[in-house]
């Protein structure tokens, strides 16, 4: 992993830099921002997140498990309570729903972690503590021969600091 890191004070400067870097196909771009900004997202023009698939699958698994556990348990040892049918689907809907939410929510989070590469066990190159404060950062991963070009683009677009890291 090697590349160039640019630190920006202003949002529009970072947006402009991204646009230019993408045009120049300098390398894989990672943008840091203290808060999610639509401007940056638009500039990066990534596709929609695939987290929703985890949500869907988790939810379906959950609701299935919820109904299954309730029905299987009452069928395993059929005890009559209050003259109700042994598997009563109406109350079991509550179980199904709650387990759906539980598994769905957890799988969403785990999916998010998975696709967002979190947790990260150690800080690698290309990060600066200022990015959680007020500054924007652009990390361009590129072979050494492109570094000069990238540095130039970053500086031209108003980076307050540009540094090469490896």
């Amino acid at each position, binding site marked *: 992993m090697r590349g160039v890191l640019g630190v920006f004070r202003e949002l529009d400067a970072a947006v402009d830099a991204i646009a230019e870097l993408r045009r120049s196909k300098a390398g894989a771009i990672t943008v840091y921002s203290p808060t999610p900004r639509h401007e940056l997202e638009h500039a990066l023009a990534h596709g929609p997140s695939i987290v929703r698939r985890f949500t869907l699958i988790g939810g379906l698994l959950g609701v299935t498990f919820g109904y299954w556990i309730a029905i299987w348990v009452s069928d*395993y040892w059929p005890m009559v309570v209050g003259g109700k049918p042994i598997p009563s689907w109406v109350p079991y809907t509550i179980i199904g729903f709650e387990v759906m939410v539980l598994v769905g929510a957890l799988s969403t989070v785990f999916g998010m972690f998975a696709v967002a590469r979190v947790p990260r066990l150690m800080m690698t190159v290309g990060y600066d503590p200022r990015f959680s404060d007020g500054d924007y950062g652009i990390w361009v991963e590129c072979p050494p021969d492109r570094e000069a070009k990238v540095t130039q683009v970053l500086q031209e677009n108003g980076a307050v600091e540009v540094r090469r890291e490896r």
Partner: protein
Amino acid sequence: MTNRKKWAVYPGLLALAAAAILLSAVSGGSTPQGRAPEQPIRFPHNPHVVALQMNCLYCHNSANKSPDPGLPAVNTCMGCHTVIGPRRPDGTERPELAKLQQFATRNQPIPWVRIHKVPDYVQFPHMRHVNAGVTCQTCHGQVQEMLPVYQQESLNMGWCVNCHVQRQVRYDCSVCHY
């Protein structure tokens, strides 16, 4: 757990295995299985049951007519052991019979240590089981081979229910718990 439905529990076991181990341990899954306490008299079942072919009911005489199987009174023992005394014909000593005789002469009951015990909220009618053809060994193990007697089966509820399910007899709670 029934064998028939054993497969069905595996998904649940996989999902919650860790919690299960922990909670089963606290929830009474533990049992004094294998307990073999020291008895006041080292009574060997083998010579009585195997060699002399005595029926279990000779000593545990209410097992087929009462919830309680009964323990032999000292005079039941002494019925034979006044003849078969602590001294063998060749003059050697039978120390356990000497203890028995001491109890008999002192008019004291033998303080046997209880081995098989279900909790007080479990009603276990021995006669129903004995009369239904369940052998003593089914629950108590091969007592005739044991010295000292120990608890072979877990005697916990899952163990009881398993047999009830297999034999297709009632196993709802109020059969045993009231």
